[in-house]
């Protein structure tokens, strides 16, 4: 099966000379939820803007369902809905007028029944005759989502959809995303909330300083890069680590009552057995132990730091 979006050797240099993207290669699979992570200014919005036709690429190319975004832009853009990062909204128009406009703009005949159902699913139906300027920020965000979905796209881009959004709306939004995925819509989102990516995405791409430094299945990413920590609660607190334990990655916390051992899940040899034996030799007793796995957040922070 060919990818729904294929980005090849894509680069972008803004007129200022700033190189926002360098040699991006990325395939998005049909029907997946792909999360793009990266610090501010990494190039996430630039990448999305190029695929959607808002920014011109400097080199390289993109195809959407096999259609080149420059030469077959009609076919490629018809498939895409975009919710931009900024709250770009009309002011004086009503909610109904603006979603009707969006549907027409994307070449679809009017379908009031679909739009009604769409607005209802976003809790916007009661506001359909309100002027957009009279809506709160969260409501405006919903309007932008409704506009992006007004033409029933096969691919949805959500550029930081949950920035400045309350818990309720965030939950609604993720429910909507799940529902869309069930209908076969491919979703590409950017977010700064890593729990979100962890919870929602199938695959994760990390972008930093215009370079895609990693693309991985979420689970294998956590497995591959994850570190585990073993925490030992000591019977009696100690003031310093005894000699002979220096070569372990150990940390003494909790006023000397806890020992934290960090190890790689995939190492041939975790060293736990030796550690416990050595502790025993030094007559350090423990009453309890627990192990934990690092989250995507830790992985992400480490990755970006590494490539800084």
């Amino acid at each position, binding site marked *: 099966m060919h990818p729904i979006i294929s980005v090849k050797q894509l680069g972008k240099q803004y007129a200022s000379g700033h190189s926002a993207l360098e040699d991006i290669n990325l395939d998005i699979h049909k029907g997946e939820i792909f999360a793009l992570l990266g610090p501010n200014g990494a190039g996430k919005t630039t990448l999305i803007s190029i695929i959607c036709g808002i920014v011109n690429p400097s080199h390289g190319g993109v195809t959407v369902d096999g259609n080149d975004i420059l030469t077959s832009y009609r076919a490629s*853009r018809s498939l895409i809905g975009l919710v931009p990062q900024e709250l770009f909204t009309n002011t004086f128009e009503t909610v109904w007028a603006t979603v009707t406009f969006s549907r027409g703009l994307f070449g679809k005949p009017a379908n009031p029944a679909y739009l009604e159902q769409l607005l209802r699913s976003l809790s916007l139906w009661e506001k359909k005759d309100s002027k957009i300027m009279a809506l709160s920020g969260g409501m405006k965000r919903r309007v932008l989502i409704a506009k992006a979905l007004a033409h029933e796209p096969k691919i949805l881009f959500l550029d930081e959809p949950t920035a400045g959004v309350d818990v309720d709306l965030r939950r609604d939004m993720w429910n909507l995303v799940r529902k869309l995925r069930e209908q076969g819509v491919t979703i590409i989102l950017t977010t700064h909330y890593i729990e979100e990516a962890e919870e929602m995405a199938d695959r994760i791409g990390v972008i930093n300083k215009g370079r895609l430094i990693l693309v991985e299945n979420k689970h294998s990413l956590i497995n591959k890069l994850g570190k585990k920590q073993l925490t030992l609660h000591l019977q009696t607190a100690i003031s310093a680590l005894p000699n002979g334990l220096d070569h372990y990655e150990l940390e003494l916390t909790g006023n000397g009552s806890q020992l934290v051992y960090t190890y790689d899940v995939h190492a041939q040899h975790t060293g736990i057995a030796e550690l416990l034996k050595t502790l025993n030799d030094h007559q350090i007793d423990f009453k309890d132990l627990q192990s934990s796995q690092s989250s995507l957040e830790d992985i992400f922070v480490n990755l970006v730091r590494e490539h800084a």
Partner: protein
Amino acid sequence: MNIYAIRAIYLFEMARTWRTLMQSIASPVISTSLYFVVFGSAIGSRMVEIDGISYGAFIVPGLIMLSLLTESISNASFGIHMPKFTGTIYEVLSAPVSPFEIVTGFVGAAASKSIILGILILATARVFVPFEIAHPWWMLAFLVLTALTFSLFGFIIGIWADGFDKLQVIPAMIITPLTFLGGSFYSINMLPPVWQQITLFNPVVYLISGFRWSFYGVADVSVGLSLFMTLMFLLICLFGVWWIFKTGYRLKH
């Protein structure tokens, strides 16, 4: 051809017109009516005829032209500048629409509005000043061509401008003076010979002259030349718009 998109843009822009009816239609009609009251009825009755036409009737085509030019430019420039300014242009840029469709929607709406306005001013003028239209179809043709051309020109200004203040600059500093000096209120035959020659560099002279010919059958320059010049402006503006979309000038980074 994405007909739905043209329709969507056109209706969206026209909705803005109806929403701001006072500002977009009523105010130009009122201000132009004042000219007819003052120059047509009050002062006009004491002025001599020009080319056998009463002064009040003589100024009607020029005044309609004045409104047509300034309103076409300001409608079209505002229409495209606003989404650029607020950022909502992202949607048009990401939609499956060709430059031709975008321009047809935006410029078509701006031109429609100017044409409606022109006809309203014409009707208002008729209340104050008696006149006949010798070539109504030509009159309409000049009206439509001019509205279209200057809406295209406004579209270019709206994309070029990087602030709302700049939208006003060209209409106020160039178009209004050129229209006043282009024979709205006098026949260029009334000027000293040197100025008659200089005036011919003013493009608006050809627009007004042709338009006045369609009313009264008299003109400062030949009708063929007027038509030719009008079509030239149209071509230049079409080229400008084509260039903007080709290069992405001030539309896309």
